[in-house]
């Protein structure tokens, strides 16, 4: 059953097209992320769902009701902002209870609901604190509780973690997921951080220049990107310029190396093609059939992974190796072979 739908939604600012032909159906309780670089239209789309921008054309429905032109106040949509947007003149409890007070909910009920939410976000002792007395992470938790207090039909989060430092961001990301799961609330999340989108979402909408590039589960988006943009934006990618040797067998040539892609290529022999390779699917001196020789140029120790840049003649190849205590660290200047299986290749015509 579809809960939130955007049909042919388009938004222009003068001559500039911010969002173009956006179509999406969101199920009840689903967590959908809009992922893309700055200026791709993800926040504008979210703001159209929230009622803060009006679509130039198209239709938005929520729970069967057309809300395309409804005022933000009458949409039953909770919003969490990047800048927290807590009311500085109110305490934490007053902030959380604001929406209920506006709706003339009984004082006792407001008190009970605020206490519940303070417990949910793990800040029961901060009810009388003012926003300036809280850390960034605590402020964002309060903003989340405030948005949830009105029991909205949809929760909208506009880059809620981007103003926080890495550790707090990870903690709060888990909190958001836990709360969203426990309340089973339909959620739209805007981010430019692919890891955040992958970790949190049931589905990810990748956007570029106002258009939807791909919609799918994180696994699909990452492993089966449908466009070059998605492949390059989501995760790291090596791009190997090669020429088709045998289109039927799916083999291409790169310098002296012959690379088997494992699939037929829809191009005549001799045509130039690009082979896309994820760094984590490459190995150094492994046993796979495809082998490209090179020399280690740089080694980055990143904690959980070791990133190795190999000079493979015409191009640098990035190889990600999982770190472990017994790992023999690669050294700069070592002659190596970058190896990968045929299924790691994604051929771009």
């Amino acid at each position: 059953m579809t809960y939130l739908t955007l049909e042919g939604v388009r938004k222009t600012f003068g001559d500039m097209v911010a969002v173009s032909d956006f179509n999406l159906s969101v199920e009840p309780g689903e967590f959908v992320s809009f992922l893309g670089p700055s200026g791709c239209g993800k926040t504008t789309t979210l703001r159209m769902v929230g009622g803060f921008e009006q679509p130039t054309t198209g239709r938005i429905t929520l729970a069967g009701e057309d809300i395309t032109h409804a005022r933000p106040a009458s949409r039953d949509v909770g919003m969490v902002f990047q800048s927290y947007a807590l009311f500085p003149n109110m305490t934490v409890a007053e902030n959380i209870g604001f929406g209920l007070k506006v709706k003339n909910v009984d004082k006792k009920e407001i008190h009970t609901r605020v206490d519940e939410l303070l417990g949910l976000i793990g800040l029961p002792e901060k009810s009388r604190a003012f926003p300036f007395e809280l850390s960034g992470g605590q402020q964002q938790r309060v903003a989340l509780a405030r948005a949830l207090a009105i029991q909205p039909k949809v929760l909208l989060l506009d880059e809620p973690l981007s103003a926080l430092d890495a550790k707090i961001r990870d903690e709060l990301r888990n909190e958001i997921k836990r709360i969203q799961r426990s309340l089973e609330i339909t959620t739209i999340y805007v981010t430019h951080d692919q890891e955040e989108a992958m970790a949190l979402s049931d589905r990810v909408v990748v956007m570029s220049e106002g258009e939807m590039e791909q919609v799918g589960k994180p696994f699909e988006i990452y492993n089966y990107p449908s466009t070059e943009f998605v492949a390059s934006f989501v995760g790291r990618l090596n791009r190997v310029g090669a020429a088709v040797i045998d289109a039927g067998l799916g083999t291409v040539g790169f310098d002296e190396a012959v690379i088997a892609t494992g699939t037929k290529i829809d191009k005549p022999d001799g045509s130039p093609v690009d082979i896309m390779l994820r760094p984590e699917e490459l190995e150094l001196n492994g046993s796979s059939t495809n082998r490209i020789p090179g020399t280690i140029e740089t080694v980055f120790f990143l904690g959980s992974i070791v990133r190795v840049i190999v000079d493979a003649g015409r191009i640098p190849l990035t190889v990600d190796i999982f770190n472990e205590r017994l790992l023999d660290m690669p050294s700069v200047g070592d002659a190596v072979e970058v190896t990968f299986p045929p299924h790691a290749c994604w051929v771009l015509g």
Partner: protein
Amino acid sequence: MTIAGPQSGSLTGHGAAGGAVQPTGPGPAPPRRSRLGRLWPWFIVALGVVYFVTPLLGTIRLSLRHNKGTWEAWRLMLGNDQMWPAFGQSIVNGLATILVSLLIIVPTAYWVALKMPRLRPLIEFITLLPFVIPGVVLVLALIRLYSAPPLLLTSTYNSTRVVMICAYAALSFPYMYRSVDNGLRSIDVRSLTEAAQSLGAGWPTIVTKVIFPNIRLAILSGALLTFAIVLGELTIALYMAQRTLAPFMADIVRNKPFEAAALTLIAFSVTWLSLGMISYVTNRAGRRT
């Protein structure tokens, strides 16, 4: 990737184990300021005190030199049956001007900040116009415009007073707009507004419960400046034949120097008292919201 064989590396640290941490010697002493350097700020403060207090002391002294007795000037002024009504009118005019000015400036500045930030320079320019239009020009224009049908608003004392309050409100724009705009710049107007909207709040609630309390101090500073301007404004009040404090004081100053000194001090005290009360009331209202 080749994997190394078993290693027997120890996790025990070496290096500085057991080594006592030597206290570091004191760093370079901060440069000592010379005696003159230390006294300089106090000299400035003293100069300011002398600058502001000397005229007051002179006025107090003058007010006590009436030839019929030390407190005679004060007795005459406090007993003057025109002074308190003039004070009352000026205070009411001041409060009314603050109200009119706030009703015009706060929604305008808020809307500009929220929806039309590009118009800020234009609005700033418009609010500065009272600085470049002399008071006498303003009042003559107002009298000319509102003294004949269809806009005959100066036919009675009270209707003229309304015109004067509107003129005062215009005079207060440069101070009020700047104060309110600075207050609005110090908060995230758009996010706060949208957060309140998403929680179901309408415009009156947003303005009174969210925006207004968060720019309260800015409004207060604009209100205090407005009040001070209205209490001392002479030109418009004189031309509009209003019996406010400034024309009354001007009349006294012309003929009665000792009483004028006493009146100045009374006006000074009442103005400060009024400003203090406005500040107190606004702060209390702010705490309740």
